[in-house]
């Protein structure tokens, strides 16, 4: 390895206020390699990529490209060098077609671009119709559009931020195939992930981050997942052993032919959904976001009213026409996937955020707010669920995503619900906290609570659910008992190969 690295960072640091996001990072990416950046949530991966892509600027340290020192003031500087990036959350306009989206970033006549899109598609296994409207594309196809858009700029280095987190298992295979072909073509790839097995399968090199610092530089194939986890979280991977559920009790939630036409052009129509959830049971709903998950959650919570009362039954009562407060009065509680602005009010103190849904816990007297009860409830939630915050007076908007999730989940669990709906319980939460959250959910189940979990993380659902359904384009699969199904079967439902 005498040639200088394609991209090298030395001593790069970045600080946001009191948080040191990156500290003295050294990184070296060889031309034509697939290099993993491994780290859990909050380890500083995204910040590092923003520095490389010119979105942010390092406080200290330097970046070299082919041995030459570079200053990346903006993303166009990085693109000019030959750096392309595919973001975790896609930046495509749904109302435009593929060529139009591409032409916003890539110069050229639409007809020529369309031809090149088809050509690149066949060369790298990225088949996509250039004239298709983006809103009609699946998540996997949208990701291909993003990748093609980068490839049209002839990058020498392609950055992919958690590319597999939105894909069903089958599409992950296709993506890896594409990445290997790109590698054979001489393109270097920076692959950001927290999924150990994927990295071991795909990558030649890995740089591991923890708390903003590099904690390891290894060939991932030489180490097992446990050793990588050690480097990533600094201790052994927390194990969660889930005992089998006891005999399930009475029916707590019943969805009966629940149908709802989509409310916007980009929404999903729910079509005749049947589901039964009993006391002491955890039922999971797998599937890629955007297949009706949000619509279904809002119908169960009461934020959207169902067309007929008996379509949604909570503890035996038809509630399809009732609002969230009436449903909560029956013993329902709900952790939504959006934390800021829905599960919590960012500009209010945590104690006032307790009031949002926990006001029935004696926090009101004659309609007046009992601050001391509000505060002691909040204090208990902070202590029990290990929320890292200065105290009940801190505003929700100042908490990190993971801490806010712990607070909201804690608030809803402290209500001792008979029926709990949790949407994406561990999005953006670090591994230790995610394990703690799952353990809590299992404890609640063993205490007799009926729990419905909507999650994109298949591993999570397989870890704690007793039954798994798959939601695909507004259809719900039959219930698959965890013990008798497999990731492949669930994956087939996720892409609509089975229904």
């Amino acid at each position, binding site marked *: 390895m005498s040639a200088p690295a394609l991209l090298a960072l030395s001593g790069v640091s970045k600080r946001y206020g009191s948080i040191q996001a990156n500290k003295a990072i050294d990184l070296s990416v060889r031309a034509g390699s697939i290099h993993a950046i491994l780290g859990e949530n909050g380890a500083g991966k995204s910040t590092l990529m923003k520095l490389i892509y010119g979105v942010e600027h390092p*406080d200290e340290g330097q970046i070299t490209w082919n041995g030459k020192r570079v200053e990346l003031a903006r993303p166009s500087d990085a693109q000019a060098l030959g750096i392309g990036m595919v973001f975790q959350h896609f930046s495509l306009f749904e109302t435009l077609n593929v060529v139009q989206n591409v032409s916003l970033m890539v110069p050229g006549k639409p007809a020529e671009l369309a031809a090149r899109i088809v050509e690149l598609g066949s060369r790298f296994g990225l088949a996509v119709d250039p004239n298709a409207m983006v809103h009609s594309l699946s998540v996997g196809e949208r990701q291909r559009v993003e990748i093609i858009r980068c490839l049209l700029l002839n990058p020498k280095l392609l950055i992919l931020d958690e590319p597999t987190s939105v894909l069903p298992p089958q599409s992950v295979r296709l993506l890896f195939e594409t990445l290997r072909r790109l590698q054979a073509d001489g393109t270097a790839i920076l692959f950001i992930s927290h999924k150990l097995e994927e990295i071991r399968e795909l990558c030649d090199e890995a740089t591991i981050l923890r708390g903003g610092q590099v904690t390891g530089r290894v060939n991932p194939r030489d180490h097992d997942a446990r050793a990588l986890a050690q480097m990533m979280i600094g201790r052994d991977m927390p194990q969660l052993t889930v005992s089998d559920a006891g005999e399930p009790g009475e029916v707590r939630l019943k969805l009966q032919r629940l149908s709802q036409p989509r409310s916007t052009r980009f929404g999903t129509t729910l079509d005749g959904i049947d589901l039964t959830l009993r006391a002491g049971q955890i039922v999971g709903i797998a599937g890629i976001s955007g297949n009706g998950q949000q619509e279904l959650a809002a119908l169960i919570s009461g*934020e959207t009213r169902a067309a007929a009362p008996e379509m949604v039954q909570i503890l035996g009562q038809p509630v399809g026409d009732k*609002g*969230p*407060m009436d449903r909560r009065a029956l013993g329902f509680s709900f952790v939504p996937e959006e934390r800021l602005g*829905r599960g919590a009010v960012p500009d*209010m103190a945590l104690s006032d955020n307790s009031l949002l849904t926990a006001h029935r816990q004696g926090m009101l007297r004659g*309609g007046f*707010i009992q601050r001391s009860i509000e505060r002691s409830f909040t204090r208990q939630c902070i202590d029990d669920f290990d929320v890292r915050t200065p105290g009940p*007076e801190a505003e929700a908007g100042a908490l990190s995503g993971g801490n806010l999730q712990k607070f909201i989940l804690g608030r809803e669990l402290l209500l001792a619900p008979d029926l709990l709906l949790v949407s994406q319980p561990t999005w953006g939460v670090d591994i230790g906290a995610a394990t703690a959250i799952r353990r809590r959910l299992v404890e609640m189940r063993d205490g007799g609570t009926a729990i419905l979990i909507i999650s994109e993380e298949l591993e999570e659902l397989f870890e704690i659910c007793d039954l798994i359904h798959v939601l695909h384009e507004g259809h719900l699969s039959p219930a698959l008992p965890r013990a008798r199904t497999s990731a492949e079967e669930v994956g087939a439902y996720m892409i609509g190969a089975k229904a």
Partner: protein
Amino acid sequence: MKIRMVRRDAASHLAMVGAPVLALVLTALCSLVLFAALGVDAGTALHALLLKPFLTWYSFSEVLLKMAPLLLIAQGIAIGFRANVFNIGAEGQFIIGAVCASAFPVYFPEGDFPVMLPAMILAGGLGGLAYAAIAAGLRTRFGASEILVTLMLSLIAIQILNYLLLGPWKDPRGFNFPQTVMFPANAQLPRLFEGVRPNISLFFALGASLLAYLLMERHFRGYQLRTAGLAPRAALYAGFSTSRMIWLSLCIGGLAAGIAGASEVAGPLAQLQRSVATGYGYAAIIVAYVGGLRPLGIIASSFLISVIYIGGDSATVSANLPIAAVEVFQGMLLVFYLMTFTLIRFRFEIEREAPA
């Protein structure tokens, strides 16, 4: 070097008090330039605007007189503003309140009605409430923007006022002027002090401030209103009824503006005339925002704006300042306040670029 805005962990109480003060200072500085450009001696103008109202008991009493309706209306509409319900037509509700209250003395000009004042205040309040409720009904039923509806209703209210004053309610012995009869003594609010005009409507306004404080800072209903304003989807998630918020916000705003209108005809005017519509309803929007939409802040801001009103009057006379310049002064105060308001939740951080 780069300056960035960083979110504070919690709203700064210092900045909450400091922001209006800073806004006032910036406004004063800018008006110095403006007044100089107009060829007015800036010192005289600012002296008249900000100091003169305090120099005589009479002019100070006029400040208190202005403050009563501004405070009352602003407390009412600020509640809605915090819930993102923008009733900007308090002027119309104020006029309708004045009209409804005037019905009693107009039809009983000898004062031969037993509970004259309570009836007037009640009728004024309910009239304003009903007028604002039109906007609530149109918003909840048809999704019509309450901003437009309340604003347009204000224009209609002025025409209702004109019709009554030029037609059925015109004082037959009033030399054809568009005004009603002078009200009998029992249709006039008791004055607070001998010889000057402030009346007990100031207590209505202070009482309303206390109620607004209890509702918004202590009561669950106020919490729901605040939640609806700060995070509408969180209010939906918790199940707070949106239409109830809209009704409540508009009815409270209309009630307060209506009582203020009634107090105006039962107070300094002592009759219904066109000049009842002097723009208190619009000025109250500025008062509400300068007060940070908080009940205590609004008490301070209503006093401040009243000072500027009275000071503005005297500046047009003694410093020869055009009335438009006074309005610009008030407008600048609002704009600067909205700018400095950011400091409550954000602080500036100076960041040195990494040495190259």
